[in-house]
């Protein structure tokens, strides 16, 4: 069964189905969405079951020729439909499946135009899955771009008062990032050959099935020494080939020998930074983060959940898979600057969170701070750091989903998100308070919950690293103090003391209903996830270990 393709195309078909259904069948749309995202959870479970943890390379590969275009002296253009999974993408696929289902259930009472809403939501689900399983750069880029459209609508149509500003800002920001990714993608494409198809084109073998290690060496040798006819070169977007330096054309734009330079800077280094910026917008990394608080504040609750829970992770995934994966030289050369950016993001995000009065903005900035740890882990170029970075993404996905759901609960009741509009919420809403406390403590890194492990291992990676100076990690540790400060201060201001709510200041018989059954259904499993991951970190590490070890091999210091 083509599990990975189903993972992508089931939601896309679901989107089409919802769009074609008769009008005003709200509950039907909902149930279709639940069924489809639920099916994705089951599919991801099957993928998890079939995944071989000991293997390092890509698994469950599905490949189909898509576009093949002879381009004369420029060689042959080949774009494949290629999907597969490894230890880095699998945890993120699992996370996405769960968060997307949570998002649907929390969309139950979405206001108006529900047909369009659920259709777009399913479209978003499919494109997100596509991003995590695509192994062809072109295919990835397609999903990456098409993800923006539903997201743009979901914020722009169902968002808060300043939704249009926020959505266009989100769109343009990410688009600007994608243009940079696009440029590098084309550069890579022109610089990399597909050794198998090239061997066939050059007449070394008859069919791709005849490929042997010997032929591979031969074709790569001929490439290196310019013995291949340019017209027979088959260019490719396949990441597997892009990740291998032997497939790069000498004297090409992004040749691994770095012959090409622009304004005195090696084109490879420029490409590294362009890609980095493209994905850093998504994560986000300070100073490319200002779209995030606006998008979160204006987005409806489920969209915030998806945004923080899944979309940001595409940035971190891109770092590992694309930026560092294809340009290990850049990652090693600029480790100090990148680590410095990570420390800046952690501390800057934390200090900003401390100053917020809007609960959602506070959580948005805390996301910025927590994503800084992902960059720290990746930049450290250690097994601890990279494993920790993937773990931190999963952990933050679960916890931020929980945090934004909790914010939504309060907003639903009072339409007010200001922290100073509340005091003593523990009295009328003890369950809400308890789950908020769980989410806050888990997020500030209480051992036993997932947040701790992610921070621990990224920080450990920071110290282990031969690339990062010690002060970067020491500064990053301040982030865990700041996290305690802004979360506990919020807890103290909103939940302790005598009950007082600004929106009902005159109302002496105020009743704020505690969590409903549906809200508990969403929050408690997430809390349990955070606890399970925290108690058994090997649930994630056993998946990532082998892949990360192979990934690390590029950075072994000679």
């Amino acid at each position: 069964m083509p599990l990975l393709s189903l993972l992508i195309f089931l939601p896309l078909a679901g989107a089409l189905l919802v769009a074609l259904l008769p009008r005003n069948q709200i509950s039907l749309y909902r149930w279709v969405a639940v069924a489809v995202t639920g099916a994705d959870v089951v599919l991801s479970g099957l993928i998890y079951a079939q995944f071989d943890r000991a293997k390092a390379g890509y698994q469950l590969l599905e490949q189909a020729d898509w576009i093949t275009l002879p381009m004369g002296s420029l060689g042959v253009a080949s774009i494949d439909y290629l999907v597969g999974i490894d230890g880095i993408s699998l945890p993120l696929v699992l996370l996405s499946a769960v968060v997307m289902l949570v998002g649907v259930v929390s969309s139950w009472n979405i206001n108006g135009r529900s047909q369009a809403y659920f259709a777009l939501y399913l479209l978003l689900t499919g494109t997100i899955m596509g991003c995590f399983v695509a192994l062809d750069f072109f295919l990835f880029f397609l999903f990456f771009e098409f993800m923006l459209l539903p997201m743009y609508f979901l914020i722009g149509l169902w968002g808060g008062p300043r939704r249009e500003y926020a959505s266009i800002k989100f769109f343009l920001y990410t688009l600007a990032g994608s243009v940079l990714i696009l440029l590098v993608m084309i550069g890579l494409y022109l610089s990399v050959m597909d050794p198998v198809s090239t061997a066939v084109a050059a007449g070394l073998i008859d069919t791709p099935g005849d490929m042997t290690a010997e032929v591979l060496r031969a074709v790569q040798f001929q490439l290196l020494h310019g013995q291949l006819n340019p017209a027979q070169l088959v260019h490719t977007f396949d990441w597997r080939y892009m990740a291998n330096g032997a497939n790069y054309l000498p004297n090409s734009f992004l040749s691994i020998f770095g012959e090409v330079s622009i304004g005195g800077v090696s084109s490879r280094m420029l490409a590294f930074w362009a890609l980095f910026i493209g994905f850093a917008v998504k994560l986000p990394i300070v100073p490319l983060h200002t779209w995030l608080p606006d998008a979160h504040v204006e987005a409806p609750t489920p969209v915030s959940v998806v945004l923080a829970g899944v979309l940001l992770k595409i940035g971190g995934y891109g770092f590992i898979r694309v930026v560092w994966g294809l340009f290990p030289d850049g990652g090693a050369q600029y480790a100090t600057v990148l680590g410095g950016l990570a420390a800046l993001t952690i501390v800057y995000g934390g200090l900003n969170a401390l100053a917020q009065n809007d609960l959602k903005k506070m959580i948005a900035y805390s996301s910025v701070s927590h994503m800084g740890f992902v960059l720290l882990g990746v930049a450290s170029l250690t097994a601890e750091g990279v494993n920790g970075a993937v773990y931190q993404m999963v952990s933050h996905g679960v916890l931020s989903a929980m945090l934004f759901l909790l914010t939504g609960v309060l907003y639903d009741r009072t339409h007010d998100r200001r922290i100073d509009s509340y005091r003593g919420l523990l009295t009328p809403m003890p369950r809400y308070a308890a789950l908020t406390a769980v989410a806050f403590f888990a997020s500030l890194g209480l051992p036993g919950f997932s947040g701790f492990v992610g921070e621990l291992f990224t920080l450990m990676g920071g110290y282990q690293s031969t690339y990062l100076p010690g002060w970067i990690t020491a500064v990053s540790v301040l982030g865990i103090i700041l996290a305690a400060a802004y979360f506990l201060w919020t807890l103290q201001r909103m939940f302790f003391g005598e009950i007082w709510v600004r929106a009902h200041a005159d109302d002496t018989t105020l009743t704020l209903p505690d969590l409903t059954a549906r809200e508990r259904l969403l929050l408690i499993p997430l809390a349990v996830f955070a606890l399970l991951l925290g108690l058994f970190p090997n649930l994630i590490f056993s998946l990532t270990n082998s892949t990360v070890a192979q990934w690390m091999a590029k950075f072994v210091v000679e």
Partner: protein
Amino acid sequence: MGIGALRNRISGSVLGVLAVASTAIGLFLALTLARLSPQTLHWQTDWITFRGQSFPLSFQLDPLSKLMLVVVHGVALLVQLYSIDYMRGDARIGRYFAYLQLFVGAMLGIVLAGNLLILYGFWELVGLASYLLIGFWYHRPSAARAATKAFLMNRIGDAAFLLGILLTYVQTGSVAFGTEPLTTAVGLCLFMGCVAKSAQFPLLTWLPDAMEGPTPVSALLHAATMVAAGIVLLARIHPMLSPDALTVVAVVGTVTALWGGFSALFQLDIKRVLAFSTVSQLGLMVAGMGTGNVSGALFHLLTHACFKAGLFLAAGSVIHAVHTQDMRAMGGLRKALPYTFAAYVVCAAALAGVPLLSGFLSKEVILAGAYWWAGQRGGWAMLVPVGLLLSSVLTAVYMARQLRLVFWGERATTETIPHESGWLMRGPVLLLAVLSVGIWFSLDPLSAHHSPFFAFMQLPVLPEGPAWLAPVSMAIVAAGGWLGFRLREPAMNSKLALASFHYGYLDQLYQALFINPIRKLANFLHRADHRAVDGLVNGLGIGTVLLAHIAAFVDRVGVDGLVNGAGRLAVGVGQLTRSVQGGRVQTYIATAVAVVLFLLWWIL
């Protein structure tokens, strides 16, 4: 041992009984284990594994953990019994017992932990329990503030502690308790965990505020056991501390002993006196650790747990009887509360170091060790034992003053006649007072050097102190006690009294030096983020819009007859820009789709 988080539906006292029963079983097990073979038992299993690296979940049972198992269970049992009466009628009593169980479980985790990482995990959990219990009466803003403050101050120490663990891992390749000294900086990072948890200078100001919690909680967490976790940590990492690091530990302990003692002098709240006394006594233990006297410090931990828990529980009885914590409103209570009075006197005397009581013995061991340590070094090192002796004077003074204010003299108000609490509260207090007598710890009333405690701990004992030490410290206690009794209360506006009352203005200093600047910085960055970083982005956006308008204008006026396609594109861009102000989403999307399609076309 387990965590019995049951719901409020069952009546409070039933829950209390359940909690007591589970702790009693735990105590029984602890005592059984303590008599087990003196070998150290290890238990470990894989927790996190990387290629070639492993972070095991590991626990160990050695004399130190046996000692702490008994202390924690013993004090917890008495505190729970006491709480059944003390907390009776509180609507959230179920939660109270659940939090206490959480604490006991986490504390046991600390003492049994087999490596630094596991210890850190339970260390933070204990912090959570402390947070929940300090803020138990969350309606009171002061309690909520105190809970946050306690957790945050601990977080500062813990961040350094975590850093120390990470550096240990980097230096030694493992997170096990090492046997070789690490670099001084790493050792001090680890020590910072103790500084916060055991309220050492300069992170001591959370402990007096923690008194906002229910008094039995103060007895268990903030006097007898949790704050002693720092001492347990020091005992575990002692071999990893370099000589320089140990010297810093000794100095910090001495400064804390003096700082706490001085701050206790002129407090007005009965619990705050005891809190600062705890700070001072913990300083004594830390100084003991710093001077290489691990066994002595642990001995003092044990005796202190008994008499200080006794003092807190007795203070709780007083508060229960007079409904205030202000000592100025007390006085003359020795007649109304004879049992509490008797217990208080015994425990206070033990704390002050009166001979025949346990505090005298353990304090002697630490002083003798410090004196021996200083003798090895000479010079300024002598300041450590001198400082510790001076802190003993302060202890005698403030305890005598407290006894005078609470139990002697005449009662300030006569509205209600206070009366003793029930046996459930009286029993634990009296038992703790009995346990504060020296005979249980050493048959020789004037020296603990042949105490079976040291044999049990399997730790070296430092040589006995000089012959003059015991008489001198007795004289010091007598003089201090006399002073405390005779001293007239100074006006609360005298500089000395104010400095003591505000514990050397530490909190004010932190407010001015750290909290205000950080909040200012946060607000500044918030504005900068909004105006500068985001302003730049918006400015870029507006600039592009302007440019597009100009382009559209030029296109319309200047190049009217030119290629239609170019014109259309410009109109499209112009519309895109207009929508930023007008907000026409449809146009946007059309444009966005167009842009994406264009890009696709371009790539292909």
